[in-house]
């Protein structure tokens, strides 16, 4: 094994595969790309997402997770890109040295001209929520339960309460029901679901599973296995604390948690790259390059996406720009602009724009802070010039928004004195929520 590669991609899921394909298309030869995948197969978490709904944007058809992954695995294979499986990256440094271990290669150190971080995310756990009670078996994250059912072929329980109405929780409510379990309810601490609207309809409403908004689990019962949970309504006005007197005991043998995803950035942090406190991912420019030159980040490790299609799209940007860097085709940055969040916007990606003398169209992705009806989404310059404006009938934190800024507008910014652009929403009134 040579110990230098032009490009190392950490992660062989949808982000890593798309980045690899895109880097190849941009001129990096397959032999110069090392893709490290910690699982025994490429495809990432898609392999256990056997439900449909993937690929509508990217391929214009509805695919299952393994099918979507399969498309990209095939694209990589056709280009001769090899994914090293069972290979776990252990460290990354700012000067692009990577160590990893795998049964085939053993413990290995490699350097690279560019590194793309595509490690994905993990699920938040019971511990992070600090749910009191006992610690029996039967408390699973939704993804863990999904693996038991879809990969191992076993049911993790029969009577289920789900906490959190994120997409995985919703999908698992349906999956468990279809496999014969009784899903008693889905509790959501927020006054709205964090999942996609289509999933609420198709996974809960169609099966008559109650969604209890502004409710949480306050205690887990059972010594060996879960025997029940206590749920309670929360007070929106009082830090979403449980309201005394609203407690309800629900008998169940399983508690599934779908309470958020956290970008898996231990390697990023280990490299000394600062994380954005809102995304829990690295802060990047429009090329998805982090503060460390030649280290890129994309997919759920950068920020949690709701659709894999957008992961692929983002990773393609990282792959293309890593290739340009490797091939010496990058242009010098002539103007730096910060992307600020304004009213109603929780975060943006990218967080900064490094404009060259010949900027291209670019898209700013962002999430809103609340469900709001009748809005305008706006990108404005420091001096108050509106770069883009888009009207929408409603926005929700569970659905990512984006706005494209044209090359022409960016060109005009080059000579301005502006140091930032701001993304915000205008609330046009009407009955909210």
């Amino acid at each position: 094994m040579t110990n230098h590669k032009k490009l190392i991609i950490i992660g062989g899921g949808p982000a890593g595969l798309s980045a690899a394909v895109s880097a190849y298309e941009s001129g990096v030869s397959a032999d110069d790309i090392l893709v490290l995948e910690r699982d025994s197969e490429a495809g990432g978490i898609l392999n256990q997402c056997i439900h449909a709904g993937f690929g509508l944007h990217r391929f214009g058809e509805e695919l299952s997770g393994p099918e979507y992954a399969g498309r990209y695995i095939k694209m990589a294979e056709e280009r001769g890109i090899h994914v090293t499986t069972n290979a776990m990256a252990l460290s990354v440094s700012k000067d692009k040295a990577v160590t990893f271990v795998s049964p085939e290669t053993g413990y290995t150190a490699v350097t690279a001209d560019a590194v793309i971080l595509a490690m994905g995310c993990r699920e938040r756990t019971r511990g992070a929520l600090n749910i009191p009670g006992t610690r029996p078996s039967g408390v699973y994250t939704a993804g863990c339960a999904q693996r038991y059912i879809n990969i191992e072929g076993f049911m993790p329980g029969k009577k289920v309460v789900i906490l959190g109405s994120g997409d995985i929780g919703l999908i698992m409510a349906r999956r468990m029901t279809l496999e014969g379990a009784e899903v008693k309810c889905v509790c959501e601490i927020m006054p709205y679901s964090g999942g996609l609207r289509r999933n609420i309809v198709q996974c809960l409403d169609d099966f008559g599973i109650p969604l209890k908004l502004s409710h949480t689990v306050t205690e887990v019962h059972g010594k060996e296995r879960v025997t029940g949970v206590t749920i309670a309504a929360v007070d929106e006005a009082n830090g979403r604390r449980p309201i005394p007197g609203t407690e309800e005991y629900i008998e169940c043998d399983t508690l599934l948690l779908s309470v958020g995803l956290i970008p898996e950035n231990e390697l990023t942090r280990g490299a000394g790259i600062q994380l954005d406190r809102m995304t829990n991912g690295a802060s990047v420019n429009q090329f998805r390059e982090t503060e460390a030159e030649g280290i890129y980040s994309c997919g759920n490790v950068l920020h949690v996406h709701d659709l894999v299609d957008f992961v692929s799209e983002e990773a393609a940007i990282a792959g293309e720009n890593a290739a340009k860097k490797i091939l010496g085709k990058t242009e010098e940055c002539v103007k730096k602009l910060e992307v600020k969040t304004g009213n109603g916007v929780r975060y943006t990606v990218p967080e900064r724009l490094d404009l060259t003398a010949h900027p291209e169209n670019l898209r700013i992705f962002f999430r809103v802070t609340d469900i709001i009806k009748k809005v305008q989404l706006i990108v404005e310059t420091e001096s108050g010039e509106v770069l883009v404006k888009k009207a929408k009938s409603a926005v929700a934190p569970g659905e990512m928004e984006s706005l494209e800024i044209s090359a022409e507008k960016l060109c005009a910014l080059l000579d301005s004195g502006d140091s930032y652009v701001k993304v915000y929403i205008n609330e046009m009134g009407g009955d909210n929520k």
Partner: protein
Amino acid sequence: MIYDVLIIGAGCTGVMTARLLSEYNCSVAVADMASDVAAGATAANSAIVHAGYDAKSGTLKAKLNVRGNRLMKELAAQLGVELKNVGSHVIGFGDSDLVHLKELYKRGVDNGVERLEIISGDKLREMEPNVSAEATASLWAPTAAITCPYGITIAAAENAATNGVHFYLNFKVTDASSAGDVHYVTDGVNTIAAKYVVNCAGVHSVEVAKILGENDFPISITPRRGEYMILDKSCGDIAHSTLFVCPSSRGKGILVSPTVDGNIIVGPNAYPISDGDDKSTTAPGLNEISEGARRIMPSINLRNVITSFAGVRPTPDIYDFYIKHSEQLKNVIHAVGVESPGFAASPATGEYLVSLLEEAGLKLEKKDNYIPTRRADGNHKQWNRLTDEEKAEACKLNSAYGKIICRCETVTEGDILDALTSPIPAVTVDMMKKRLRAGMGRCQGGFCSPRVADIIAQHTGKSLDEVTKNGGGSWLVVPREGGIK
């Protein structure tokens, strides 16, 4: 067979005793109701090797704590278990606390604790910059240490098993009888016969004493529950030593301490409960320890909590440990009410119990072939604790060390297979977790627990639906009808 000695309870006290006995030519059995050794208070405490200034001078507790502190360090070195001499501060806020710190200082000196020192609040903050600006003084005890209490107990149990001690897990003592010089102790299915019985049953020790035949046992126990939280390793450097506050009547008070694995532990409170096996946490309890932690360290970020748990300590109705020959039963010894600093004391408590056994007539003759390590081939080091060169070498010799199963804690398939073939095979998900930390990291087993369960199933010839979290009814997946293999 008739064992020379049966130890009831495989917590730190029982295991340390068994380990010492395994140096001699005598047959020893250890029985525990749990599916693993170190499952009770040993698994859930502050993970501190207390220096020994806390217990009142002249008590057995004080004596065993101070000696245990020294022996624990030797034992950790011998068994290759990590122990860090981080020291501890007892932090005082104001003049009345200073009076108390001086008392503790004097007590410590009387107990034989070395290098104790009372330092100013400023000196304290020089050593621990995150400590509250309101702290005015501290009792600094450099001999206090941190280690993993269940880790070292498991290591000692493996060492004992390697030297012939038999462990009976999932053995809940329900009845006992004796005939001649032999005691017969049963769990209703199997019976263990032994000439001497040592009761180290922790929170259940009074129950066990009664089952063994004690009438009017002189001690009673109140289970006292303490809740804890663990913070992510990313904030592991907020404290460099164990930070106590001045003690109250309800235990040593809430502490903030680094753990030997690089996390931060916060807790405990202390409340009497009726069910000694009730290890549940409560919302008010977790709030209480959060507030206690903020008092020591106002800047502590409790959003970094990765898990919480509770431990139950056997608090006796007397001040001291009760470690004595039975007044009624021949060749029965009780170790009852061994609460904090029971873990720190345990290597010395083991010595003391061995001396009581000898007093009762047990013949102690050293073995020629005693193995001082966890396994016959030495102390096995986990892959992620090796140097880079050793890691590479291990992968070359066995590719299973190149396959990471637990990502957060970098546990390899090789490590899991080692634990499965260890002297006390790890056959549940929690046993793996306690030995290797698989599932103890940030994702709390979300990724690795199905994979760990799978490897256990494959290796033990079971189906996944037969693997449990920690024995008994702690099933992981719904059993398939007909028990498909």
